[in-house]
């Protein structure tokens, strides 16, 4: 199978973010998500259970698993992987995602125990991190300096055959895989950054599949390739800085949420491939999405809210209150055409209700120091658990901390419900808490969520086993149709 990808990983080291969300072909996590986003044990023998104290999780490990190099997988490898992750000496780039882990210990060769700093209902969803052999992280040096990033050894269904940097990567089936030898024996991923080049090479029949922007993918309708659109939890949102006199005003924030025509943007910019967003929880997460927290497109309502709050239109159509014009700056990553399109659409919708938005396309380095004062087009999202992305995005404890809650959104009601959801032991109580923070957020929003983007893929119709899944905010061909490629079978 030959796939084309516009994104080449810089390193295959799990500690540097390779396959953190699972579906890495080379590594296995303790657990993984299936097509219904339900957790399944992988290197764990069964799903770990939480002790009555709600802080310790005991994980029984699968026996008889070997790494690609023939060494046996056991508790030492799990402990070494997580300790290296948490130790700043390894300079792991994903450490911040695991702040709730306090300790990890080996109980015996087939059991490990995690202790969390506080009850964390999403904890199991974080255990998708790939496990590496203990020997590979024996010396406390930055993970980037380790040769492991180009010569990885995992337990996964595929091992790295050859990686010609900048060109292609060959994955070879691991016939000793504990889940059974994959039927697709070899996967070659060819790296071609340019979308148009990839489309051209695809139409010359060179590849069995690739990922393309929706509009380009649609041109393959009726060809030998099937166009697959995956819904995602991948949102784009406008941050509204609390510190700014205009974007920090509750009336402006609420009015802007009514003023944007989300479906119109999706239809006009992305050929209808996407879903409107009002909160970070997409509707495909039916169990958690709160219908009462959705904003409708209602320009008249937006104008009414602004009028009532004293933002009155001046002669040039721009509103002002007490001498302060309703004007702010919106920044976007200049290299990202999707974010630019959203920024422009947002500007014109805001203009229609008398709010003047100035656009600035910048590099991330220039954006970062200004995030507290100027609005920004931000993206992200995880389909697996509502805590993973939403907590750092909305909780006041992350206000102004890196890119997590860049506009310093602070809402005590949302904080309380987020904490309640994180610490809930009973699933029903958790769902109730997740819906509660969505309602609390919608009553006093601090962002304008615009859309969840669909990801478009092209696949040659020659294999059975495809299962649609909801994609995370990730690049490339590890997710998408090929998330479970180890279970695919060639058609006779």
């Amino acid at each position: 199978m030959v796939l084309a990808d516009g994104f080449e990983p810089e390193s295959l080291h799990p500690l540097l973010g390779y396959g953190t969300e699972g579906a890495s072909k080379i590594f296995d996590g303790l657990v993984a998500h299936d097509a219904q986003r339900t957790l399944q044990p992988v290197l764990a023998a069964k799903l770990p259970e939480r002790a009555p104290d709600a802080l310790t999780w005991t994980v029984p490990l699968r026996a008889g698993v070997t790494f690609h190099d023939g060494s046996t997988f056991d508790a030492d490898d799990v402990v070494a992987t997580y300790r290296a992750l948490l130790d700043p000496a390894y300079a792991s780039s994903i450490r911040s995602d695991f702040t709730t882990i306090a300790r990890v210990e080996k109980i015996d060769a087939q059991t490990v125990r995690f202790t969390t700093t506080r009850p964390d209902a999403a904890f199991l969803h974080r255990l998708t991190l790939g496990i590496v052999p203990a020997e590979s992280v024996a010396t406390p040096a930055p993970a980037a300096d380790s040769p492991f990033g180009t010569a990885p050894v995992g337990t996964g269904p595929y091992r790295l055959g050859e990686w010609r940097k900048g060109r292609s990567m060959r994955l070879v089936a691991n016939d000793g895989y504990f889940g059974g030898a994959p039927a697709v024996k070899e996967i070659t991923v060819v790296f071609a950054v340019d979308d148009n080049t990839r489309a051209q090479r695809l139409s010359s029949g060179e590849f069995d599949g690739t990922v393309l922007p929706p509009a380009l993918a649609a041109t393959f309708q009726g060809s030998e390739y099937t166009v697959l659109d995956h819904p995602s939890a991948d949102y784009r949102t406008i941050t509204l800085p609390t510190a700014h006199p205009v974007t920090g005003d509750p009336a402006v924030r609420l009015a802007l949420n009514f003023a944007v025509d989300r479906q119109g943007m999706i239809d006009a910019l992305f050929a209808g491939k996407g879903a409107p967003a009002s909160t970070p929880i997409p509707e495909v997460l039916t169990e958690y999405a709160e219908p009462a927290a959705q904003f409708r497109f209602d320009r008249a309502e937006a104008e009414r809210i602004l009028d009532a709050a004293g933002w009155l239109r001046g002669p040039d159509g721009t509103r002002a209150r007490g001498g302060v014009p309703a004007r702010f700056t919106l920044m976007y990553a200049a290299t990202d055409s999707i974010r630019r399109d959203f920024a422009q659409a947002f500007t014109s919708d805001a203009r229609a209700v008398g709010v003047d938005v100035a656009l600035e396309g910048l590099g991330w380095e220039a954006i970062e120091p200004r995030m507290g004062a100027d609005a920004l087009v931000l993206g992200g999202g995880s389909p697996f658990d509502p805590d993973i992305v939403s907590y750092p995005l909305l909780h006041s404890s992350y206000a102004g901390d890196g890119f997590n809650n860049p506009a310093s959104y602070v809402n005590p009601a949302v904080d309380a419900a987020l904490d309640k959801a994180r610490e809930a032991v009973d699933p029903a109580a958790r769902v109730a808490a997740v819906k509660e923070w969505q309602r609390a957020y919608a009553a006093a929003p601090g962002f304008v969520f615009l859309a969840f983007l669909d990801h478009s893929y092209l696949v040659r119709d020659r294999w059975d086993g495809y299962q649609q899944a909801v994609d995370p905010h990730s690049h490339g061909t590890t997710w998408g149709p090929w998330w479970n490629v180890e279970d695919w079978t060639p058609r006779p």
Partner: protein
Amino acid sequence: MSRELGALVLRRLAFAVPVLVIVAIGVFLLAASSPFDPIYQYYGVDVFTATDADLAATRARLGLDDGVFQQLGRWLSGVLSGDLGSSRSFRQPVGEVIAERLPWTILLVTVGLLVALLLALVAGTVAAWRQGGMFDRVVTAIGHAMEGIPPFVLALVAIAVFALGLRWLPVAGLTDAGAPATVGQITRHLVLPALVLGVSQTPWLVLHVRGSLLGAFAEDHVAGARARGLSEPVVVLRHALPTALLPFVTLLGTRVPELVTGAVLVETVFSWPGIAEAVVTSALAVDFPMIAALAVLATAAVLLGSLLADVAVAVADPRVRADG
């Protein structure tokens, strides 16, 4: 003569060493004052979920907060002991990145240069010979027009015509997807990028050959040859062309930087796994060791280009004295 040449080469090489050191240090200082933050490269998309405390810890661990002179000192002492350092953007030793990619760029650039040379000499000579004729007008017009066309446009058009329309050649890559790198495979894949690179470099050369040949036609020795009744081909090819070629050789040497720029664009469009692509990647990542190594490499290529051109001129023209 050969002793003089040897002295020239030695002098130039001795001069090249301080130039290369200055370039390396200059690039280091420039990169240090650039607004790019290498921590973004290290983290990739993970930066969006990282906390300030973790970013600070990683920064300290990687030595990114150290002063630029401290980083420079670390690098220089490494280089002196034969270690070019480790590239952050490729997460590989710098030497390895260069060793993997440089041969492909040299192959592409060499073939591209030969194409440009051949096209320029033939078209330039014919155009000057029949000055004002149909061929001359077409070549001059195309030459001027092509000066304004960036190589990537040419590349996309070439792909559309030869790879997708006529299906004669593969679209991009070094080999077919998954195929081993055999001579046949690489040759087939080399044709389009080398042609595009060559053709994109041709306009300057063709117009130059034409111009200096026209100049040579007006010189006394050509008039003399014509007066002696020598045949037109002999006059043009044996008398006018050799004198016209001398400045052309020098020009070729100075075109090396342009060739490098062209290679960056062509390599990107054709997914050609060469060193030029690495230039962009490492520059955006403020990857100190990689940028410095590449800058030194590019400077060395330019110095070598002009040295070779000067040696060639000195060898070809006995009137030129190789005194520096």
